[in-house]
């Protein structure tokens, strides 16, 4: 079967392929993917001085201060994190408990001020999940690009004189491929990109095949529109499910290998594999605490994500019960002692947090002040960075 009836059709077909596989690739890759879209945080209220914490992809934290700019009669605080490419999360904290207006957006040339994407009055602080917002903006851009694609395609396909049905088939699957590529280019991992690229191509191939086969079979029973829609429905289901499955089959296979391999490990190693990755030293520290005491109250500071989370700690130290000291009582001895007395917690055990124990805030150490404990128990974990685990037994806090 001769696929193209004229030279013009061939040229149009090649142009379409060129457009999708080259131009869109360049536009997506160099224009969208490398640009950091949310780059400025503005705080419009001048009365308060906010501080900003940036959490990087590798979970390092950095505290930055806002700069001041004057705009007419207003003073605006801003922070530009354009240079930080792999920022995951931004947390803004304010010095006072005052409602604040914050904007997260990009200062585009056509707009005088950043696009206000979030405008929330918050009481204490505000978290921005940067990765999520980038994804949101990118999706909007992709949507606009895809819309432009449709118009270009319609224009190009008008030039082909072949069966109208096939034209639509082409149109739909090239459009889908465009969308799939858009999704693919949101990942930063190059290997993943190549794999997903191949998966997308496989999808388009399978989808087109299913589409043409089904639509051909349905031609005697249904009108053109219904034919297109039914075929589309089935092929999209195939395309996407296939897309999703292919993506996950690699994961599933690797996971299966891992499960088989880890069956030979000791149970303790299997526990450590996940617990260390997720909770740092907490599992091993919990075992140490349980070897010292059971059915006791153990004081923990609410400073870090893991060692400051009572709900997680209780799992690892049960049947002991964690008592979480609020942040404001953690830094001075007087306040801490006041907290213990007010809540009638004495005598009690006090957990000691050393550097590196909490992977979500590895720089923290606690207590940062001297306590006169009646007893101190210690253990060195040689298997895990020679970390020294300690627990203090406090009978009275007056000294």
């Amino acid at each position, binding site marked *: 079967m001769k696929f193209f009836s004229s030279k013009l059709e061939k040229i149009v077909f090649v142009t379409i392929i060129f457009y999708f596989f080259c131009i869109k690739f360049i536009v997506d890759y160099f224009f969208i993917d490398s640009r950091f879209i949310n780059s400025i945080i503005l705080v419009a209220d001048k009365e308060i001085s906010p501080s900003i914490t940036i959490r990087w992809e590798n979970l390092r934290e950095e505290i930055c201060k806002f700069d001041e700019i004057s705009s007419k009669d207003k003073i605006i605080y801003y922070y530009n994190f354009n240079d930080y490419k792999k920022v995951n999360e931004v947390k803004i904290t304010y010095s006072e408990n005052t409602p604040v207006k914050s904007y997260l957006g990009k200062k585009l040339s056509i707009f005088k001020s950043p696009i206000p994407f979030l405008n929330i009055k918050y009481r204490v602080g505000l978290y921005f999940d940067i990765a*999520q917002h980038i994804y949101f903006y990118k999706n909007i851009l992709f949507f606009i690009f895809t819309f432009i694609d449709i118009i270009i395609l319609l224009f190009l396909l008008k030039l082909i004189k072949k069966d109208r049905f096939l034209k639509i088939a082409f149109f739909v699957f090239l459009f889908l491929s465009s969308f799939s590529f858009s999704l693919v280019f949101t990942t930063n991992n190059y290997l993943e990109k190549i794999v997903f690229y191949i998966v997308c191509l496989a999808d388009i191939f399978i989808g087109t095949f299913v589409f043409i086969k089904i639509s051909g079979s349905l031609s005697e029973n249904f009108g053109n529109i219904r034919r297109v*829609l*039914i075929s589309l429905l089935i092929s999209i*289901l195939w395309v996407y499910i296939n897309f*999703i*499955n292919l993506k996950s089959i690699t994961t*599933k296979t690797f996971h299966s290998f891992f499960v088989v391999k880890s069956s030979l490990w000791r149970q303790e190693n299997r526990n450590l594999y996940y617990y260390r990755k997720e909770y740092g030293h907490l599992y091993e520290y919990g075992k140490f605490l349980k070897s010292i005491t059971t059915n006791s109250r153990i004081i923990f500071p609410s400073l870090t994500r893991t060692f400051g989370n009572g709900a997680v700690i209780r*799992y690892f130290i049960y049947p002991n019960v964690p008592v979480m000291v609020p942040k404001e009582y953690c830094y001075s001895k007087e306040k801490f002692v006041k907290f213990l007395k007010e809540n009638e917690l004495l005598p009690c055990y006090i957990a000691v947090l050393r550097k590196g124990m909490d992977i979500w805030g590895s720089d923290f150490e606690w207590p940062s002040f001297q306590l006169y404990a009646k007893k101190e128990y210690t253990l060195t974990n040689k298997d895990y960075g020679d970390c020294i685990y300690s627990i203090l037994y406090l009978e009275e806090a007056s000294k």
Partner: protein
Amino acid sequence: MKLAGIILPFFIGFIFISIFFKKLNILEKIGIGFLLYSVLFTFNFFVLNLYTDLVMNVLNGFFINLFWLLLAIILLFLLRNNIKEFFKIEISLSKFDWVFTLPVIIFLFIEIWYGFIFPVWCWDSVAVYDFFGKVFAKEGNMLSTLRYGYFEAYPFFVSLLHMWGYLIGWYSPLFFHALLYIAFIFVIYGYTLRSEFPFWIKWLFIFSVLGINSLYGHIKMGFNNLPPTIFLSLAFLYGYEWVRTKECPYLLLSSLLGGGYLWCRNGEPWWISLLLFYLISLFIIKGIKWWKKCLLFILSFIFLLTTKVVWEYSLRNWETLLKKQQRQSEFVEIKENKTIEKSNMVKKEKFELKVLTNETIRIISSVFIPLQYITLDRLQKYLPLTIDMFWRAIVKTRLAYWWIMIFLMILFISDRSLWKKWELWVWPYFFWINVVMIFVGTYVFIQTFPDWNIPGSAERMSMFLEPLVVFWAITIIGEYIRKIPSNERKKLFSMDNPMN
């Protein structure tokens, strides 16, 4: 004992389902039997411990199993069932089917094995579900909820299932999640085998369900998201089956599965869509006597809401727990730096019909609470945020399914022949009413919990939308296939039974 604790729920559930729902395929019977019996078993443990002080230990667990097993056997003989028919296997798999089935079995087996050997390690499960499962197993009661505090939105299904896993001696109870998922796949597989779908549509359906990665991923997590999604999805599926076939057992099955859902998660209002659906469908379906309709509605109402009513009633009435608490005063401890206020827990209401009726009325009327948040001022302030959250958590995370849904809607709107079949309205109804409820819920939640910014949590609670879209798509495809004259179907289904 370890194996008996797993096999018994499958077996007892299978017998019960076989007695009452004879038309189901054997795989459906096994799957639904396990799902519903696990609900019944954990619910029994909860009620008996709370109201009769039955200690939660392995012996009592086996006594409960024994009770239901004996009841099942008595019913079996009283109702004069033909036992041979229960085990009648109507599955004829071609070689091509096996090619597809084997990798599926391998992947699922790997997940069960993973659940046996790895501990529960994901954050939420460690913090809540598995923690309480472990503590219930060690202490033999639920007093720890007083000591540590608990979320009323999560009934104890997952925790009690984990507890049973620990009680019968397994190192990790994570395998129960794999078993629930396998039961779900069994039901889908059995359903397709019972249907008239051609070979490739069956596999399209099964793979589409297996391809829902969010569900598959949750096997390893041990959260309280996979079980409710399974129950709710199947409640929708059998709700559709009820209006398609007009056979009453499917309605009751749907409501039982809905009740199972409410024993997993109590906070979200998806049950409203089911309740309304039962009401509307009973109005529309003809050929059933009015008294029978009333009876069916009452039964489905009871099956659907019993777990919710008892849970909410129990939450407000910890009298039994409190008695114990007074005996063991050391248990009144610190709950996130605050002492538990005893006065909040003392409700000396009796467990009687009047109280339960009041509780039911309160639950139904709570549906209208969100109305107070819909004012122009609030809309201006919170609607953009709601849209943002909705986009991030509900739409963006499952774009593929929204695309499919858009095509389904276009197809549905453009084709009048589909309109006329009112049973096909079931899917858009379930989808859109729940989407609207998610949107309204997000809008209210942003105002009532201003610090709430957990798109992941919202994504997980709305996972049921994905199987819903798949069910909808397959139904529509099946509908078109039925329209093609049988002699012409061969052309379309040339792939049908390729090995035959």
